[in-house]
């Protein structure tokens, strides 16, 4: 049994971090040092972010997670960290968060279905946790796993899907400072439908890479299997970098619809690496991104 700390994970995300929207935007502008881009980073409303979710553990409809995720128990919560690490073990969430500086990060979120949002996450760099656990030199990939608990996740009773959901990153991607373990949004604890209590956020990749409600992290030397790639290898690659030039076989990725823009919002051009090319393009130098989609 995981040890139950009296320090709930919500205590670690103090209310003081609840900045108002203007401050959030200012923070994003500073982080990006690019006023033109920062201008577009007006966060979506909390209602948009919490009522329009792909979290198939709770159902296929985008409204299902908001309807059904209330039943999810997120406390106690622990993550089993193993594989090529120095300090493997099952860590209680409070222990995982210990010493990690919780930051506000306003990121674009681009779904592979060609819609997008802007989300004000709170969380800490995944690299912080990995450094603390100690990554062994032989490790090259990080594998993640979502909770498997059909009693609380009605979508998991559908046997046509290979539960639990699994995802993975290359180690250099996992160590990148933009890669976040998010524990909340809008300064509040993570809503269940958004992947409570802790989820990955990789802003330059399609949303399905940003695995939710993580219970297992494994360091490995081989590229781990990932759920959508298992289901449809021709449509969903391991890398899944946002790339306007590489279409999904069934739709174009050149543009996206912004959720919250309303009925006449139209489309905006999708940016290479979702607008984070300056920070991450060098990770893929020499790679053919049409092959490694």
């Amino acid at each position, binding site marked *: 049994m995981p040890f139950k700390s009296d320090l709930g994970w919500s205590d670690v995300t103090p209310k003081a971090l609840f900045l108002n929207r203007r401050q959030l935007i200012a923070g994003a502008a500073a982080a990006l040092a690019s006023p033109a881009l920062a201008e577009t980073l007006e966060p979506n409303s909390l209602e948009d972010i919490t009522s329009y979710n792909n979290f198939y553990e709770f159902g296929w409809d*985008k409204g299902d997670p908001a309807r059904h995720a209330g039943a999810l128990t997120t406390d106690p919560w622990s993550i089993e960290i193993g594989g090529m690490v120095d300090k493997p073990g099952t860590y209680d969430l409070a222990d995982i968060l210990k010493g990690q500086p919780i930051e506000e990060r306003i990121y674009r979120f681009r779904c592979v279905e060609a819609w997008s949002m802007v989300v004000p996450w709170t969380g800490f760099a995944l690299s912080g946790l990995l450094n603390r656990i100690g990554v062994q030199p032989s490790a090259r990939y990080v594998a993640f796993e979502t909770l498997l608990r059909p009693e609380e996740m009605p979508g998991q009773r559908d046997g046509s899907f290979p539960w639990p959901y699994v995802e993975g990153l290359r180690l250099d991607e996992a160590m990148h400072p933009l890669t976040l373990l998010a524990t909340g949004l809008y300064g509040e604890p993570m809503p269940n439908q958004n992947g409570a209590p802790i989820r990955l956020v990789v802003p330059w990749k399609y949303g399905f890479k940003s695995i939710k409600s993580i219970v297992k992290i494994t360091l490995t030397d081989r590229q781990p299997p990932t759920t959508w790639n298992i*289901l*449809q290898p021709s449509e969903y690659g391991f890398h899944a970098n946002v790339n306007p030039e590489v279409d999904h076989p*069934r739709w*174009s990725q*050149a*543009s996206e619809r912004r959720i919250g823009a309303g*009925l006449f919002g*139209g*489309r905006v051009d999708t940016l290479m690496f979702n607008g984070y090319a300056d920070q991450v393009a060098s990770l893929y130098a020499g790679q053919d991104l049409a092959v490694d989609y």
Partner: protein
Amino acid sequence: MRDRINATARRVPTAFLYIGGAILALWLLFAAVQDSLGPDPVKALEQGLGIWALRFLLASLCITPLMRAGIRLLKFRRALGLLGFAYAALHFATWIALDMGLRWGQIAGDLTKRPYIIVGALGLLLLLPLAATSWNGAIRRLGAAAWNRLHRLAYPAILAGAVHFVMIGKVWTGESLVYLGIAMVLLVLRVPQSRRIPARAT
């Protein structure tokens, strides 16, 4: 029971269907403009119009089998077909203007490259000559036999609509497969009859 349905049907004017269809479409459009269709009004409108197009068209396919069961609703068939076409046309217009945002390059690309869009477009294209010949004068001018032959295009058109629906999902969901199943059953019911027609002609 059957007689009661037939008696009621005789009294209900077909205008009720047109009015009902128009109200439903206006309500959808109004809700979308009012922003009460959730965070993504464009998809909600597009999907609402698409699913109702398919429902009206499937309903129009039910008329003949029901007639064989003694339920006479023939006078509603044209209205159901036309409503299906009108919804499909609005669905297409929503896609062009609101979903694609009039990005003509991308529209042209999708219409030629994306199988589910191509199948949907094929369905709409097949419905066009049917809608255009849905008035009494057209039946007279074409002659009943030619008109009947032409209107058998409804079968591939509706099949295309249902297949289009199935092709959209990231994974196959039960709902679209149920619609495809219903379409298949209604089409299979046609098979013996369409075999009978040439037999009778000889």
